């Protein structure tokens, strides 16, 4: 677009960015390469790049806000009415205990990092989800991009493979999306069925990058030939308009992606041994986790899988012991040990979190309500310290007692592991420079 340029507080000319984008596209650079250029220029402006310890992230999202006091940070010595019904068990990590309903996670605890001192101040689903998934406290004035969108903008991608894939639209798309980065950095969404029984054929595909089931590659190629004969109207202006040239470049890239079988293969879960599929769990969540691992193998940088039901205002212990924890235990432990067995855990991070914790005090409906002042998250792989529990909460689990940290800090640490300086500044749609994580600092103790 003409003079599509915003003066910014940096004295940085946004048009230059666009020039790099559009211009490079014309020279036949792939989108990832264009992104790399942008990332380099961003990094250049922000000094030295931090060292890179991981390439990818799988975010395991526990929608609704898990009662982590009954999972990762039990309080057996707290008074009745707070301590809950579950017993702590020992794990493979010395000195770390977790819930008795997470026995498989206990076995892989020597590979995980439990952060027990993370907290924030928003006990409301929507904004808390935004906080946790963006690493920035939400403000009405600016929509922060999700971490996945930041990764797809700043990390080097793989040709023919999307950088950011999400198995569900978190909170109807109000979280997990690209915010001020613009539509190009939204997640590619997975649709279809993962083959819930763990045996059947999965019909998963990433929306928008794979042909619909009854649309063959041959048909696409035929139609594209027909299209070529109808698409010459703007010939006279082709060479001059960025818009036209840009769209032509995207056309070629789109064909490359649709013809590439990398993503399609990633979703072909029948390639896996039946034992592996069973190990991940014979439900959609388990099979999604397996597909997530396969996507990472094919070059996807950020995958979000999600499981709901954690908003346990009533009968929390029943839900947790019968369904929630066993399901998570199965799948998360399978994911971590599978990544480890395949030698992928060193370069892949797993981040398991929900929007907040739940009240230490059990309510009259034997439930726990929203509580953001204390919660726990689980990290694994990448550059994270293994078999480690970071920080503590007070005796009643009300608030962080030692090493308190915020979602921004955890996000910053994740990005440091990716080799992306968390203090990198990007421009908002109005040209205002915004630091990736406004208030975050890297938590050195979390790093191996």
């Amino acid at each position, binding site marked *: 677009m003409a003079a599509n340029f915003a003066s910014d507080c940096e004295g940085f000319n946004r048009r230059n960015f666009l020039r790099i984008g559009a211009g490079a596209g014309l020279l036949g650079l792939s989108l990832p390469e264009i992104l790399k250029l942008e990332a380099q220029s961003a990094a250049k402006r922000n000094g030295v790049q931090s060292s890179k310890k991981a390439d990818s992230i799988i975010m395991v999202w526990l929608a609704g806000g898990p009662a982590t006091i009954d999972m990762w940070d039990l309080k057996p010595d707290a008074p009745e009415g707070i301590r809950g019904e579950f017993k702590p068990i020992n794990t493979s990590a010395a000195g770390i205990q977790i819930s008795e309903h997470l026995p498989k996670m206990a076995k892989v605890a020597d590979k995980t990092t439990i952060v027990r001192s993370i907290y924030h101040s928003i006990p409301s689903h929507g904004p808390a989800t935004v906080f946790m998934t963006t690493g920035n406290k939400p403000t009405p004035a600016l929509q922060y991009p999700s971490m996945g969108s930041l990764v797809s903008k700043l990390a080097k991608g793989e040709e023919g493979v999307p950088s950011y894939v999400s198995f569900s639209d978190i909170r109807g798309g109000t979280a997990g999306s690209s915010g001020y980065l613009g539509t190009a950095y939204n997640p590619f969404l997975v649709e279809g069925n993962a083959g819930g029984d763990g045996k059947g054929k999965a019909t998963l595909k990433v929306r928008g990058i794979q042909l619909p089931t009854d649309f063959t590659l041959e048909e696409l190629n035929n139609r594209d*030939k027909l299209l070529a004969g109808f698409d010459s109207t703007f010939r006279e202006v082709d060479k001059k308009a960025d818009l036209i040239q840009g769209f032509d470049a995207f056309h070629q890239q789109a064909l490359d992606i649709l013809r590439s079988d990398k993503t399609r293969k990633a979703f072909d879960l029948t390639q896996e041994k039946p034992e592996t599929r069973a190990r991940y769990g014979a439900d959609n969540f388990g099979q999604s986790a397996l597909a997530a691992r396969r996507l990472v193998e094919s070059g996807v940088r950020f995958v979000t899988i999600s499981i709901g039901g954690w908003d346990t205002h009533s009968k929390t212990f029943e839900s947790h012991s019968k369904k929630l924890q066993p399901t998570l235990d199965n799948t998360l432990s399978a994911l971590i040990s599978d990544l480890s067995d395949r030698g992928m855990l060193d370069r892949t991070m797993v981040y398991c979190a929900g929007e907040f914790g739940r009240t230490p005090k059990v309510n009259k409906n034997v439930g726990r309500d929203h509580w953001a002042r204390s919660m726990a998250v689980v990290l694994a792989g990448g550059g994270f310290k293994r078999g480690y529990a970071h920080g503590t909460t007070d005796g009643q689990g009300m608030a962080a007692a030692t090493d308190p940290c915020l979602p921004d800090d955890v996000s910053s640490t994740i990005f440091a592991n990716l080799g992306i300086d968390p203090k990198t500044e990007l421009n908002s749609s109005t040209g205002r420079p915004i630091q990736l994580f406004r208030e975050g600092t890297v938590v050195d103790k979390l790093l191996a």
Partner: protein
Amino acid sequence: MKSCYQWKQVLAVCVVVLFGLHDTARAEVQLPDGTVIKTVDFEKHIVGLFGRSGCNLGSCHGSFQGKNGFRLSLFGYEAEKDGVSVSREMNGRRIDLNNPDNSLLLLKAMGLTEHAGGRKFSAGSWQHKLIKDWIVQGAPLTTGSGEIKSLDVTPKEIPFNKPGEKINLKVMVSFADGTSENITALSEFRTLDDGVAEVSSSGLVTSNRAGDTSIIVAYRGTVFPVRAMVPLDVKPGYKYPSVPEVNYIDKLVFSKLKRLNIEPSGLSGDAEFLRRITIDVIGTLPSPNDIRTFVADKDTNKRTKKIDELLKHPMHAALWATKLSDITGNNTDAIENPQNLRVKKSQMWHDWLRKRVAENMTYDKIVEGVLCATSRDGESPEDYVVKVNKLDEELTKGFVESYSEKPTLDLFWRKQGAVTLDQWGEKTAAAFMGVRLECAQCHKHPFDRWTQADYRSYANVFTQLAYGASPEAKKVIDAENAERKKNATGTNNNNISVVKEVYLTSVVAGKGGAKGLTHPETNLPLVPKALGGPEIKMEAGVDARRKLFEWLKTPDNPYFARSFVNRVWGHYFGVGIVDPLDDFSIANPPSNPALLDALAKDFIDSGFDIRKLEKTILLSRVYNLTYVPNETNQFDDNNFSHCFIRPMMAEVVVDVLCAATGMVENFGAEAPKNARAIEVGASRVNSSISYAFRIFGRPPRTAACDCERSMEPALPQKLYLMADTNLQIKVESQGNMIKKILAENSDDQKALEEMFLSTLSRLPNDREKKHFEEYRTKSADRKTAFVDTLWALLNTKEFIFNH
């Protein structure tokens, strides 16, 4: 580490000795352009040099955290603080009075000791001499010595004759102390379009190709734009053709083009015009019959008639209700609880705007209804509660249209989350003035006039605003809410609909009122003030927002009319006269100021008649030009010499795809049945189409401005058109237009013509007919050939871009 530092010091001294500058004698400093500075002043010269050298950028020491412990004010707008940072912090190590060349400030800037920012200038350079002379003087600081009265750049408009010429800019500054100086060497320069003209760091401008752009000159946060006009190089004896003019728009656009030797393209053909204007005005495609009728019509007045017809079309009001929903921030997720009614309230918001556009209510009246909204509009609390009860009752059944009858749009102010004063300031400045204020929240706006005090004074205009129950209505509302809570089922308080109202408190800000924002430096109360306008006296019982509104609509208001005519212009040309549309600032001047002024004046004179403004624009020859460029105007992208090919709004993309395939989209429960995309009020929908909305840039409307709507093409858009199920269903459906076309046209070529008309709004040319014929013979059957053809047509650039 320490030894390294010492070693560098030794090196520094050596270098300095080499250049013979180790003495502490005063010396005049000669700048590269010959200007001589007799006595270096910190504020005037050193801070200027910081700016020119990039030291005080936000990415360097101008950042709020500073860099490596050294913080400068962003762009040097707080010279006094910079003086303290430089001379007093770090135990004074930044300045060494005994051995000036040993000052950390110089060692770092000259790269003689570790400096992440690298070497900014070398030893012995004029910059070195400048800083050194100041240190030799004893590093004096005189607060306010550099206060700027005005900046003047010559020439104000660069009269290039052709591409490839060079000219030096000269920057003069008048200081408040009465002196003036040539500070060209201490200024920063940048171009808005380096394709047209580029500028060096010393202010040398080079013309590259025909067109025009602005060179932005900045000296210590004061900005001065200079227009650079580069005419096309023409052969001797070249005579500019005479171009017919319909109205003043043509006169002003063409006279500028003439100065640039750029010739406008010819008139668009009838079919081209009809497609463009139908998309622009009512957000859909003309039908094949519309096209045939229009093209065959012999009436010389037919374009005027079509313009009148379309401007009265109900979908025209829907389209502008969508645009005004962006501008006023109709964000479904931010609307007050209960959550289950938010979608319907977003629709009420859209309907309220739509009704007014349909009635051609004048723009000032519409804004008044938004800006000065209250919930009761003067009604008694009892009547209000009755009304709310009725509305809530109706809302449980479905979408409600009666809200449109309410005089004011109180939904604009009814947010679930707390909205701070400064956010109201930012929202209203962007919505009704086209000004982006947010930079001034934390520091003086770097490229505009706004200070933090301006920002906060403006925010204080909204101190009276309250949301809850006013003292006079409290009893009635509390009683009603107690009743509602008693009868509520379920436990989630968020889902209980309670009665609340937007009202005005009697709090008077600035007079010990606890609510107002205070001065950033002195922390004293700030009197509310219109942005760039008069103080607004707060009086109990008088709406300060109304006073703001009265100021906005005065004929000499620089923003109100201009920002809106620019938005309308931007909609019809794809590029604003000020572009981006909501970035009215000194550093982003209009490409054609005379045109913007004339449109604004005409708009004000008409009493803010929106439809008249639109008609004037649509009737102009400029709007009626073809998109096909000529030799002279092929690179023009801001002077409107031809129709610019441009993307469509996300909602229009969805509607146009429906029109072209003969299908109807289902927006789910978030929209009234059978609505078109431009009729949907909610900022999010739950159906499959939300994906298309997102990738084509429908904004979530968290900010009240146009800036969130992303119109840039992106890869997912192309993938959507080629392969997304949501669209492929439409292409392959048994119920789409293919069946009808094939049934009505047994001849393949006739059917092809029909398909071209209903997608590209034109007939196929011979080459295209032949291309189809070849494809047809290879296809399995007639239906397949046409399904493939429909797919191919929807995937052309001609289809997806308006032109």
